[in-house]
């Protein structure tokens, strides 16, 4: 029964999104807070240090945390406004029950828990254990991520657990495991400082990781040359030494051509390749026809610019290559990542000072959350759920027979498909808003409507939660103790600032109670979050993501510890591979052959324009939090379709004219923003909004064959001008239906 119980307008009236501009009581007590809590921003993998000001168990403001080494007080607008998610009028204060025709009504925890547990039991008895699924997210702390993984396997006993990291870093993770045998950025960002050349590819650093911009400028002040690869002139590209304005979906063609150029011009580190890598010959073989001229034709980048970039990269003594979702959200996401790694390995510039490589993890705990077992194929410590030794070790930590440990489940989008097929009947979600964040979301909505039972844990009634039978009022980032792991691999402490308001409960407590009621209470006896972390340490011990030597005390004393950290006297590892001992079976870094193939959907006569999607600086992911903060909404109130003047002229599209963007999956109308800062064959839409303003009505569910990441970054569309000029004053997208 996962249809909306009443009209969406009525739900929005009660639960928002409403825009919060200031604390409900005003700024009372900000000058004399009860406490100043050193913690971290919840928005993005930088996890900037911030101090929250607390008065009367409410967060009333912030103060920069000057000592935290990564950001030294610096923040983006989301960080500045993050405190307004606390004490928000939309905050869920009670568990809610769906009542047909009436909406969502408060209920008791007992009643809500009874419903949840009886439905889990009913569905599993009727259809099998795996018919009840769990979707989680990596804005959760390490403790909660670990707990969700154990909860799914030990309490719910389902294989079908996956997470929204599936839309985030899985391509990078898979690529890094193939090449290095370990999934983490190889360096801390301190190694940017004296890099001679920096490549930033598919990463809109200044909008999605704004505080990282400073580190790149520090390098530039020291003489670094910056190469930005992006279909748009993003803020960082505007001043870059070289901007390669690549056609979406052709990244691996560029990397292949650059690799061939390095080989043809004797710009390889032959000693490194010979002594520390494998697979180079085969990798070079598959790009032998990737000439610069060919790459120019495929990527749309002028040949001289490709050569200039390859020359800079080839001749540098130190360098850093950074990538993010721009190359990873593809049906070739893993191949793109491997193409980048091949360029790094070919020049041997890794494992040395100022020689770095890494993906820039997007979500708050995108790094830690993907290591400790809440993805469908993984166990804590980044262990493999199909590996008998790994299963045995974790089964032992959890106190269950290995045979009872479920196997590999379905990935996030495959779960939606399985719901459509009727194989999965129940869903518990936490920290995930798939109706906004998954591709082809009309298809996702149809799936939700087929569920027999859906329970959502969240602090706001997000768009997906409107389809739930039961909503459990959970906790914000600042309402529980824990740790997260930043994009650099630095484990940092999240300090609890306030208690959940009303009858809302900490997420941990909710999960533990369900586990208890499912009869697994003896496996879930934790005094506090630190106790969960201490079990995680043991569970990760000996795995590639080894946290055993990390303690809360050590993290606090050092303002973060980089894993791997195998023993308590180990200082942590900011820079990987200094010993040249890679974690692959043969101990070498692996080149992987990557030859170009087209994206999942290419343009044709019916759909002649490339559509790509991304983010804006003022919003975070599906917007559950940031579409409720007034000033953030005010910066960029609605999604605009960015279009080049020449392409606009072809269709007689005028500035701010509503343009119908149509793909094979759906259509949406968006005001045109006619700008020269985008390729002439490509339009761009940001994706943070729901309903009719959702870019993900349009995007395809084509998945990478290895990582199963959806191809958000490229599809074919057609543009239909409507003749209506949209008034910016009427912009209203934050609560679109």
């Amino acid at each position, binding site marked *: 029964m996962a249809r909306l119980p009443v009209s969406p307008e009525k739900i929005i009236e009660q639960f928002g999104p409403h825009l919060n501009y*200031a604390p409900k009581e005003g*700024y009372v007590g*900000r000058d004399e807070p009860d406490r100043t809590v050193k913690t971290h921003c919840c928005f993005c993998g930088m996890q900037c240090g911030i101090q929250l000001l607390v008065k009367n168990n409410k967060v009333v*403001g*912030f103060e*920069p945390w*000057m000592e935290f080494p990564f*950001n030294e*007080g*610096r*923040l*983006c*607008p989301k*960080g*500045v*406004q993050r405190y307004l998610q606390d004490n928000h009028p939309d905050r869920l204060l009670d568990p809610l029950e769906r009542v047909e025709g009436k909406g969502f009504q408060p209920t008791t925890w007992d009643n809500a828990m009874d419903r949840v547990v009886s439905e889990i039991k009913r569905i599993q008895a009727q259809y099998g254990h795996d018919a009840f699924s769990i979707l989680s997210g990596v804005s959760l702390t390490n403790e909660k991520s670990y707990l969700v993984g154990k909860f799914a396997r030990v309490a719910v006993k389902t294989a079908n657990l996956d997470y929204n990291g599936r839309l985030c870093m899985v391509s990078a993770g898979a690529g890094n495991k193939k090449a290095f045998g370990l999934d983490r950025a190889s360096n801390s960002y301190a190694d940017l400082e004296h890099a001679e050349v920096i490549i930033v590819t598919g990463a809109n650093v*200044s*909008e999605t990781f*704004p*505080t990282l*911009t*400073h580190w790149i*400028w*520090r390098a*530039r*002040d020291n003489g670094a040359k910056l190469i930005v690869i992006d279909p748009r*002139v*993003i*803020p*960082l590209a*505007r*001043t870059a030494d070289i901007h390669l304005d690549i056609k979406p979906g052709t990244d691996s063609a560029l990397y292949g051509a650059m690799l061939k150029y390095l080989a043809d011009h004797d710009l390889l580190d032959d000693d490194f390749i010979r002594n520390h890598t494998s697979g180079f010959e085969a990798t070079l073989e598959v790009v032998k026809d990737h000439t610069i001229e060919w790459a120019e034709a495929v990527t749309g980048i002028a040949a001289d610019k490709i050569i200039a970039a390859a020359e800079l990269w080839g001749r540098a003594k130190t360098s850093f290559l950074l990538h993010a979702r721009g190359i990873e959200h593809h049906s070739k996401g893993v191949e793109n990542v491997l193409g980048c790694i091949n360029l790094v390995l070919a020049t041997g510039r890794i494992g040395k000072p100022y020689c770095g490589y890494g993906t820039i993890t997007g979500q708050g705990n995108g790094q830690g959350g993907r290591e400790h077992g809440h993805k469908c194929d993984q166990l804590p410590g980044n262990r493999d759920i199909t590996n008998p030794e790994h299963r045995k070790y974790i089964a032992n930590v959890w106190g269950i027979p290995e045979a009872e440990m479920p196997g590999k489940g379905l990935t996030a989008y495959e779960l939606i498909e399985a719901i459509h097929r009727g194989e999965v009947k129940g869903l518990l979600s936490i920290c995930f808003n798939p109706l906004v964040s998954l591709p082809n979301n009309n298809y996702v909505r149809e799936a939700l409507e087929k569920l027999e039972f859906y329970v959502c844990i969240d602090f706001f009634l997000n768009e997906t939660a409107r389809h739930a039978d039961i909503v459990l009022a959970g906790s914000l980032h600042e309402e529980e103790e824990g740790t997260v792991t930043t994009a650099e691999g630095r484990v940092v402490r999240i300090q609890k600032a306030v208690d959940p308001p009303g009858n809302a409960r900490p997420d941990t407590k909710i999960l533990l109670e369900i586990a208890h009621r499912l009869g697994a209470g003896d496996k879930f006896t934790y005094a506090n979050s630190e106790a969960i972390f201490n079990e995680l340490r043991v569970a990760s011990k000996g795995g590639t993501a080894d946290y055993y030597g990390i303690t809360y005390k050590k993290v606090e004393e050092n303002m973060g510890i980089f894993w791997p950290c195998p023993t308590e006297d180990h200082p942590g590892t900011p820079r990987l591979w200094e010993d040249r001992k890679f974690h692959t079976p043969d101990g070498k870094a692996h080149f992987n052959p990557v030859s170009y193939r087209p994206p999942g959907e290419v343009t044709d006569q019916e759909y002649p324009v490339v559509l790509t999607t991304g983010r804006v*600086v*003022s919003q975070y992911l599906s917007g559950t939090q940031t579409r409720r903060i007034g*000033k953030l909404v005010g*910066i960029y109130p609605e999604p605009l379709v960015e279009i080049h*003047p020449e392409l606009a002229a072809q269709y007689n599209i005028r*500035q701010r004219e509503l343009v119908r963007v149509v793909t094979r999956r759906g259509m949406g109308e968006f005001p045109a*923003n*006619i*700008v*020269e*800062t985008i390729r002439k064959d490509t339009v761009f839409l940001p994706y943070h909004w729901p309903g009719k303003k959702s870019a993900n009505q349009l995007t395809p569910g084509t998945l990478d064959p290895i990582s199963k990441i959806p191809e958000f970054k490229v599809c074919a569309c057609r543009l239909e001008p409507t003749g209506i000029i949209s008034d910016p004053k009427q912009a209203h997208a934050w609560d679109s239906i």
Partner: protein
Amino acid sequence: METTAYKTDMEFFVDMQRCIGCRACEMACAECETNGHESMIHVNYVERSTTIQTTVQVCMHCDDPVCAKVCPADAISKDDFGVVHSANTSRCIGCSNCVMACPFGVPKKQEQYDLMMKCNMCYDRTSAGKKPMCATVCPSQALYYGTREEIARMRPNSTPVNTFIFGQLTVTTKVNIMMPKGSTHLKVH
């Protein structure tokens, strides 16, 4: 060493090429109750149709502030540290002379209060040895607050400039704009 007094060797530097248009400075400035939760710093696109470039405008704190000179109510004053203070609320008559006279377009009249308001370089923070809020949070450090020696060491490719020529008028300011190395002034045509 931490001090709680105004640090007279600290200066404000603005580097437009680093501005990413994120508006963290505006958001942070508007947290201040003294400003009535209005931002005193302004980020604007230069011309969005052709470029993503944004500029950021903060009060330049002129050595000889025109805003103060044209104020008929003597509401604007410059202190011994060179900070040009926002209009004294009991004196300001909301005439907007300063708004029209400022060569940088900084003062804004807040109609709801019938008062001119502008940046006072976070006097509450800077007088206690802290940095202004905008320069503290700026994620690209397009806004930097520090000593002249620090900026010379950290940004060897740029030169701070605080002389601005508007036609016949030469204005020198407490706030610096970072310019290409060797620059001595900025001439506004």
